[in-house]
């Protein structure tokens, strides 16, 4: 039995983008976000997290399918060329899906 009624966007990117992403998220009308620290490696090289210029964040946004589509496209257009960034979307089930519909 599968019940998916919301989307989870996960973003791995450079810490230096944190405050910009928060502005983006709020401008696009998401109801919330969660951020944690990470390190990693990808096509733009290794980011070992030993100092600020070199650490990653992981941003998670619960939203509806519509927001997910628009926001990931916005990210791709704005940041993919010049920043280390990976984004993916997954299906999740929340208790009160309407809470997470963008305004």
């Amino acid at each position: 039995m599968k019940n998916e009624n919301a989307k989870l966007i996960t973003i791995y990117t450079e810490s230096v983008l944190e405050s910009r992403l928060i502005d983006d998220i709020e401008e696009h009308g998401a109801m919330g976000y969660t951020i944690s620290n990470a390190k990693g490696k990808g096509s733009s090289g290794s980011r070992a997290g030993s100092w600020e210029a070199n650490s990653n964040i992981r941003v998670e946004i619960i939203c509806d399918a519509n927001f997910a589509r628009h926001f990931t496209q916005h990210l791709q257009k704005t940041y993919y060329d010049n920043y280390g960034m990976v984004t993916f979307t997954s299906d999740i089930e929340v208790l009160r899906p309407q809470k997470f519909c963008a305004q």
Partner: protein
Amino acid sequence: MSLSSIDPVIWFFLFGLFAGVMKSELRLPSQIYELVSMLLLLTIGLKGGIELARQPFGVLLPQIAVIVAMGFLLPFIIFPVLRYVGKFNRPDSASIAAHYGSVSVGTFAVAVAYMNTRNIVFEEHMALFVVLLEIPAILIGIILSKGMSKDTQWSKVMNEVMLGRGVMLLVGGLLIGWVSGPTGVESISPLFFDLFKGILALFLLEMGLITATQLSSLKKYGLFLFAFGILTPIVFSIIGIIVGTSLNLSTGGTAILATLFASASYIAVPAAMRISVPEANPTLSLSASLGITFPFNIIIGIPIYYAFSQYAHNLL
């Protein structure tokens, strides 16, 4: 130069460098690194501020004007070299020019330690120059990368630069030192002044580890960057000697000003460039400033710049 005449803090750097090259799992936890650099910035600011409290501000105004002008000028000297000799694209050239036009607080701290160990006097308000030199090169870097385009939101850029951690702590320390004066800060001196060299040792240990991670990416960019990373500080230090002696700074003060000109930023400028000139490759500028210029300056450069300064003062 015997081994024991090398400052122990330099050994901490070399130790970190060795550990990093050997891929040891040694590292300074990230929040400790943040604390350690906060303390260095605050201490340097406080010292400068105390000195400002000691002398009339008016006397310093001419010096301030010259230093700020130099901060705007220096990036212009190297930008064409990067663009036409180094064959870097426009954003990369602009970003590297900004790094080398600005200053490194860690290098400044090592220079101060060098003078203190040898009981060489210098103008304590040099810390003020660190702040003054930090910012202009960033603005020039942005202009060089884009031209004076109307797109650039200057107020936003200035905001980000001024409110960055580094500038805030230096300026904050400076002001607190200024209003409190030498006796006021006595109660906080055990943390900020007595521990200074020890804190610097921890900082340099981590800098060694970070430098080691830059060495591999350095290989990719080859000989030009290597030569650039050593010649620029030497040329800039000579400019610094000339400016310092013209401003009637002491031998020690002139050497420190030369060190500031010779040093390349690896904290404030990278962060600012990443946001304002994102097309520039951050690995390029960081591996030059951290992988070559920083170790060159703290190990070989500072004694040379001091010798330059002595030579220049003897000429006069």
